[in-house]
């Protein structure tokens, strides 16, 4: 029997965390598990705030010509809601859960650069705090939309300090994200346990790898744009101000050059979560591993070349429009391939409907809707009706909520036992699940129609057109149901942390390396890393007669 290979030893041991409990040990921590947990907790808090912003908006929009919320406040709400959910919830949650899991999944002791890891977290946290501090200033939070188009975001149209806080907060957070991307790349390329070739990487790790490349190449684009915007606002520079020779359209190219790959940054790790959950709960390996991995790389590359599909109404010319339309439709193909691979994984399986699987299956349905409306708006003439209307609001929420957030919930139910040592309540989880599905679809399905009948987005009120009030009211009721579902989720987390069933090492009978250690893992992650001779080391251990690779 061959020696079980150990994780490569660091030449210099990491500074020990010591036995100290308490807040200070967390603040100074460079352990990837603690940092991952801090990311997750912080994003949960930002999520509650972002959700509250959404519910306030929906209440205002429940009736035409309502005056529950003034236009000043409403414009701050939708700006902060979008900014929070994208930059301070979905992105850092996925980065954070990646930071927790990637070293475990590859059999390593920590990330390649633990201190850099901590820096990324604190930059994210404080970037968000700086942004939210703006609410307490005299001129209030930024109110120019999460994309802050110039010249609206510049003087003389935006004289308050809100957008300045926005740009600086996001700059700080963005630098942290670049650092995370770099850290992930080096970790995944160099710290894999012996036997874990790139072709045996868990798909979640593949997705984090591709996402990390996207991060390091596209965040610099928005960093440049933020600096230019700040120079315009603070030093009267002329980048984006048409009145002094600048170009409003240049800002959009830069913003969407980052912004479009950003949505893939928000969704690829979610795909990774689904690619872990569905096989385990179908009791089968993922169908077409190489195709799922390859299609991820294809999506990553293609995503860099489609940005101007956000600009079809800007007047770039039909040759440009046609190119971006085609490229955007092409992305649907590798994405569709993934969906079909997940469905095929379930086919002929023995499906177990624990909470992670409920969310994963719902994800497929919701994300397909989001993807299909995405193909619709990729078609220029359709986009000429749908862009900047509630149709797009519906599309983006099906992709980011029905897609990324549902996957995040699946991941939470799946890995909570590993992180905390306790199971989340199945019963409360089912309540959470059904209320989320009902609330989500009530909120957003009808918005497709609202957009097609002519309701623009980012409006604090609307006239009493036929059925607009009714449709908006339905949407608001859905949002309130979603609010309740989130409260149940938070309750589940609190109650389970105290009294959840002990999880054991591998409650789901899963196969990747994070399940080969205790729940929660010890400081050094593994007593021994099992031999890796295939994509599913624990399957191979349990089925020596039927290993994945002969």
């Amino acid at each position, binding site marked *: 029997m061959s020696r079980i290979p150990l994780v490569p030893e660091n030449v210099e041991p990491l500074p020990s965390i010591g036995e100290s409990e308490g807040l200070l040990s967390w603040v100074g921590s460079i352990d990837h598990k603690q940092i991952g947990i801090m990311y997750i907790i912080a994003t949960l808090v930002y999520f509650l705030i972002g959700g509250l912003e959404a519910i306030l908006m929906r209440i205002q929009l429940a009736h035409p010509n309502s005056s529950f919320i003034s236009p000043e406040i409403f414009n701050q709400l939708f700006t902060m809601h979008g900014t929070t959910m994208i930059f301070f919830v979905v992105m850092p949650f996925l980065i954070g859960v990646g930071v927790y899991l990637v070293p475990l999944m590859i059999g390593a002791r920590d990330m390649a650069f633990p201190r850099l890891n901590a820096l990324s977290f604190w930059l994210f946290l404080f970037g968000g705090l700086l942004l939210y501090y703006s609410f307490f200033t005299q001129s209030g939070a930024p109110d120019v939309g999460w994309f802050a188009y110039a010249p609206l975001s510049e003087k003389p149209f935006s004289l308050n300090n809100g957008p300045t806080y926005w740009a600086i907060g996001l700059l700080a957070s963005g630098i942290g994200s670049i650092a995370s991307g770099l850290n992930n790349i080096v970790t995944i390329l160099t710290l894999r346990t012996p036997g874990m070739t790139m072709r045996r990487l868990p798909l979640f790790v593949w997705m984090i790898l591709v996402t990390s490349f996207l991060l390091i190449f596209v965040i610099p684009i928005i960093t*440049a744009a933020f600096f230019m915007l700040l120079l315009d606002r603070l030093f009267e520079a*002329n980048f984006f101000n048409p009145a002094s*020779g600048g170009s409003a359209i240049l800002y959009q190219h830069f913003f969407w050059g980052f912004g479009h790959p950003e949505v893939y940054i928000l969704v690829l790790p979610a795909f990774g979560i689904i690619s872990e959950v569905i096989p385990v709960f179908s009791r089968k390996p993922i169908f077409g591993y190489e195709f799922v991995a390859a299609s991820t790389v294809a999506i990553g590359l293609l995503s860099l070349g489609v940005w101007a599909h956000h600009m079809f109404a800007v007047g770039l010319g039909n040759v440009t429009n046609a190119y971006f339309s085609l490229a955007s439709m092409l992305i649907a193909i590798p994405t569709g391939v993934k969906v079909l691979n997940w469905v095929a994984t379930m086919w002929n399986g023995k499906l177990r409907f624990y909470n992670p699987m409920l969310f994963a299956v719902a994800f497929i349905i919701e994300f397909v809707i989001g993807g299909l409306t995405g193909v619709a708006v990729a078609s220029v003439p359709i986009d000429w009706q749908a862009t900047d209307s509630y149709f797009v609001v519906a599309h983006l929420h099906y992709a980011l909520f029905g897609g990324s957030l549902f996957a995040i919930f699946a991941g939470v139910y799946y890995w909570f036992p590993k992180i905390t040592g306790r199971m989340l309540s199945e019963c409360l989880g089912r309540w959470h699940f059904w209320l989320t599905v009902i609330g989500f679809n009530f909120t957003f399905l009808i918005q497709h129609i609202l957009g097609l009948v002519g309701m623009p987005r980012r409006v604090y009120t609307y006239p009493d057109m036929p059925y607009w009030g009714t449709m908006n009211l339905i949407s608001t009721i859905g949002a309130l149901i979603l609010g309740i579902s989130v409260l149940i989720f938070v309750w589940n987390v609190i109650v389970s942390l105290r009294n959840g069933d002990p999880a054991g090492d591998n409650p789901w009978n899963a196969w990747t390396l994070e399940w080969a250690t205790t729940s929660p893992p010890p400081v050094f992650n593994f007593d021994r890393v099992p031999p890796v001779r295939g994509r599913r080391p624990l399957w191979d251990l349990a089925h020596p007669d039927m290993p994945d690779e002969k």
Partner: protein
Amino acid sequence: MANNKMLVSFFIASESIFFLMLILAYVNFHGDVIDGPTAENSLNPVKTGIFSIFLFASSFTIWLAGKSIKKKDHAMLCVWLLATIILGAIFIFGQGMEWASLIGREITISRNVFATTFFTLTGFHGFHVCVGLIMLSILLGLTIAGDFKGPRSDGIECVSIYWHFVDGVWVVVFSVIYLWAFL
């Protein structure tokens, strides 16, 4: 050992994109200015070219520093690190003079799109050079204190990679701003 060189290499790939955006902004507005300061009527390519030579020379000296540590030649390592710092500082001094001259002629970042993109691009480049000078000074200090006995040092190699990057960016920036305007 964590792969520091890999980190720095991917980092400079990322920073290249940042500089690419600043360059694209400059290129986008090039030629837009009808009257007012432009590259042709405001800049001195010969003077800047001479100062650039100092920067390019500093890439050579840091390469020599790298060779010195491989040979465990501690004294020469100090010498070449110091030379790199001095050459880099001369370049920054030249940049500063150029900026002072422009500002003295009331050409500031808010003047027009040429001035905006010029100061932003050269400013961020200069900032990156200064960061490099700080790192080199730290290396020099540690070397004088006895560290970096060789033959290998991630610290020296990584800062070298970064320094060559900063040089490479200047090749592009100088070509886009000075050569393109005057040739």
